[in-house]
């Protein structure tokens, strides 16, 4: 049984922590957890996520509240506040191609040092990176990313932590669940152990540390 109260879960995450947050334009983002971090006044977070959503939605709430010092993301275009804070020097933004970002997170969770990708070769993304040629084709060496916490949104969780994601809310969630020291899950539904068929479990229970209780 891994359930925990929302406030207690958020309180585990200190100011300055590096946090991976699932979701794609707010879809599949653990909304209550994000809102609770804002309510608790968290500061100086490094947020690793696909995007910063929109103002008032998902990670956008953290941006607006000034809780974020740095973000590693692939897209910030639909959140004018992220752009404004970045251009004003209040927020550091490290832009990473989406396919590279997800592979770097996967590498962190799967015990790989990094991957070689053709994406970004010959662009500004190459800056500061090692280029490796294999069979005459150039690749960039992109290194693994890990975080102190992964905040994961699931459709179903059982009480020991097996997770199932629905439709396009899966996105970064199962990959991030592998890549952080502490994995906190916000689930739409919490069901008894054995209710999710073994073949339908996407994230295995042992990697999950906490599930936000519905109490």
């Amino acid at each position, binding site marked *: 049984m891994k359930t925990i109260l929302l406030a207690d879960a958020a309180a585990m995450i200190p100011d300055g922590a590096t946090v991976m947050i699932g979701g794609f334009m707010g879809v599949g983002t653990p909304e209550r957890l994000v809102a609770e971090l804002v309510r608790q006044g968290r500061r100086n977070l490094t947020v690793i996520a696909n995007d910063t959503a929109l103002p008032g939605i998902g990670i956008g709430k953290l941006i607006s509240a000034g809780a974020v010092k740095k973000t590693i993301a692939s*897209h910030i*275009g639909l959140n004018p506040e992220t752009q404004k804070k970045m251009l004003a020097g209040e927020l550091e933004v490290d832009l990473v191609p*989406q396919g590279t970002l*997800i592979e770097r997170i996967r590498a962190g969770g799967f015990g790989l040092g990094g991957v070689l990708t053709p994406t970004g070769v010959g*662009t500004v993304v190459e800056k500061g990176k090692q280029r490796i040629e294999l069979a005459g084709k150039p690749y960039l060496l992109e290194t693994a990313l890990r975080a102190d916490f992964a905040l994961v949104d699931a459709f179903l969780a059982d009480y020991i932590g097996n997770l199932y994601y629905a439709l396009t*809310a899966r996105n*970064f969630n199962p990959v991030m669940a592998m890549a952080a020291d502490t994995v906190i899950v916000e689930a739409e539904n919490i069901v008894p152990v054995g209710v999710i068929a073994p073949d339908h479990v996407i994230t295995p229970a042992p990697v999950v540390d906490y599930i936000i209780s519905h109490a």
Partner: protein
Amino acid sequence: MDAQTIIAKRIAQELRDGMLVNLGIGIPTLVSKFVPAGMNVYFQSENGLIGTGVPPAEGMHHPLLTDAGGKPVSALPGACTFDSAMSFGLIRGGHLDMTVLGALQVDAAGHLANWMIPGKMVPGMGGAMDLVTGARRVVVAMQHTAKGQPKIVKQCSLPLTSARVVDLVVTELAVIGFPGGRATLLEIAPGVTVKQVREATEAELEVSERVSTMAV
């Protein structure tokens, strides 16, 4: 016919049965409206869906079934969902037959810049760099000019999306390819002259011997 419709209809002619295709936000999305009848094309949303259908009727949408812009979509029979690692594995691994995306600039060799204007607009590359690097065929859908200025330039002044050149540019005036690494006029829109296209284009344009009229 408005500019967007001309572009979308012409690009739809590039579709083939069984293709896996990714459509960017904006004009590219319109292409799905013109799939020839009876043709089965798989549309991928890079947020994790193959089999993206039209936006659902009111009251029938679900907040967890969206396109890459976060907008509600439907899933056609035979659709499937997956995580972002798989999504970009499909894109990078040569499984995506075609990507259609917008552009800020395309240069005379076919290089594309579409993800930032330094100091002004920095939305991030999202999936664009992977799409342009990985798709079997890259098609640019854009208006020929922006505020009267040519978007097909001698050399991109904006940061490139990929070192890989695009295969086709479709605008409301023309279809342009890059055989031998040189911008080449392949088709012109109905009622448009080669001269008009040249005047709206900064890059030098080869004119194909078999330049024809877009069948839109």
